[in-house]
């Protein structure tokens, strides 16, 4: 029931950002404004939409780079991410991922790529970063599902603000500071088991852990 209420709520909220002149208000209504902008970039190489995305996500990605220790390369990462967004925008499909999720995975992959290049001792690249870390929706075999995926981002966003600070801190260190659960435990001076239980409690609340999970 709570899920249904959330869906209603989201659709009501979404209507206000959809463009009523486009006709299919219901389909458009599921898209968040960032996904609409990204689609405009992909379809029409729309530079004003691209600028809006840059103004919103650019400073987030720069902070992400800084938090990950890429201090002198932070702006370079932002540039690489945005050039990559421009090049790939024609493959973006809002049904497969929300724009913010898609952009996060591009930022993550560009960060991994940059670190790999810095660490590299040989010239050889036996495997491309994207063979290992995929951008959502780029697997052509993947069926178009996706209300589930779109809802999951909203659910995560809505639930995150209700999490206790100690759980958010642990997750933030994993995502923003390139830390394993073990290094988070070392840094906070708490047992690995405590880190894992905080993550588990948080993910349960965010319903990331599916009910039939055996993990």
């Amino acid at each position: 029931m709570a899920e249904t209420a959330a869906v209603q709520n989201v659709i009501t909220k979404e209507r206000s950002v959809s463009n009523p002149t486009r006709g299919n208000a219901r389909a458009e209504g599921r898209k968040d404004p960032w996904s609409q902008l990204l689609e405009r970039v992909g379809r029409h190489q729309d530079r004003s939409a691209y600028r809006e995305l840059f103004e919103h996500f650019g400073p987030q990605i720069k902070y992400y780079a800084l938090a990950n220790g890429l201090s002198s390369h932070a702006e370079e990462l932002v540039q690489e991410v945005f050039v990559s967004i421009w090049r790939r925008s024609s493959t973006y499909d809002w049904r497969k991922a929300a724009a913010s999720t898609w952009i996060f995975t591009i930022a993550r992959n560009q960060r991994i790529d940059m670190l790999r290049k810095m660490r590299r001792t040989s010239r050889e690249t036996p495997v491309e970063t994207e063979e290992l870390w995929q951008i959502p929706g780029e697997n052509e075999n993947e069926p178009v599902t996706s209300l589930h995926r779109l809802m999951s981002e909203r659910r995560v966003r809505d639930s995150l603000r209700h999490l206790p600070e100690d759980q958010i801190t642990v997750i933030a260190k994993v995502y923003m500071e390139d830390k394993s659960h073990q290094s988070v435990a070392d840094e906070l001076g708490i047992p690995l088991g405590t880190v894992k239980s905080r993550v588990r409690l948080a993910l349960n609340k965010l319903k990331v852990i599916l009910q039939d999970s055996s993990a």
Partner: protein
Amino acid sequence: MTQHHPDTHTLMEYSAGNLSEPYALCIRLHLDQCAHCRSQVDTLDSLGAVMMESQPSADVNDDMFERILGRIDTETATDLEVHTEPKVRTAYSNALERMLESDINDLPWKRQLADVSVMDITHLFPDQHDRVVLQKLTAGGKALEHTHRGRETTLVLQGAFADNNGVFGQWDFVTLDNHDTHKPVALEGDDCITLSVLTAPLKLTGTFSRVLNPFIR
């Protein structure tokens, strides 16, 4: 249908981009075949996006957007074509076979025991410390009983094996550590081929097995 999955913590570190390449490869190969874990990773990627959004932001240089537009404009049409061309499809079905440039059944295996062959592929993962090994257990064959000094992460690529923990089939994901002693037996049918990442050499528990242990030199 896979029965044994990576735990949620490992999937989170994958989604955050914090795993080293050999572990990321194991996860990626599992994800290619497991809708259940793919769905979890999708949600974890969304969590990453929301975390990034909920953190402070950092001011970017005023002229950065212009510089990005400049780069897009100067990229020649040919550059763009290269990026939009469909990737060259090879006969190989997954990232590992593309790295090996071979079907896993056609590799130059080194036989260690009657039923056990190995191939060390650590050299494909430069700049990291773990050992990466492919192992093949002949259909119906037995490995020696062994325990582990560190952590061993294994993905079943073909066939299936059984040990005291259960039966592990294709694309199943198994993590063992120094508390686990096992004696894997391959099921009949296909040879069982696994991809393992080892944080430390495993040790055999039986006598006179030191010489035979592929991971102790």
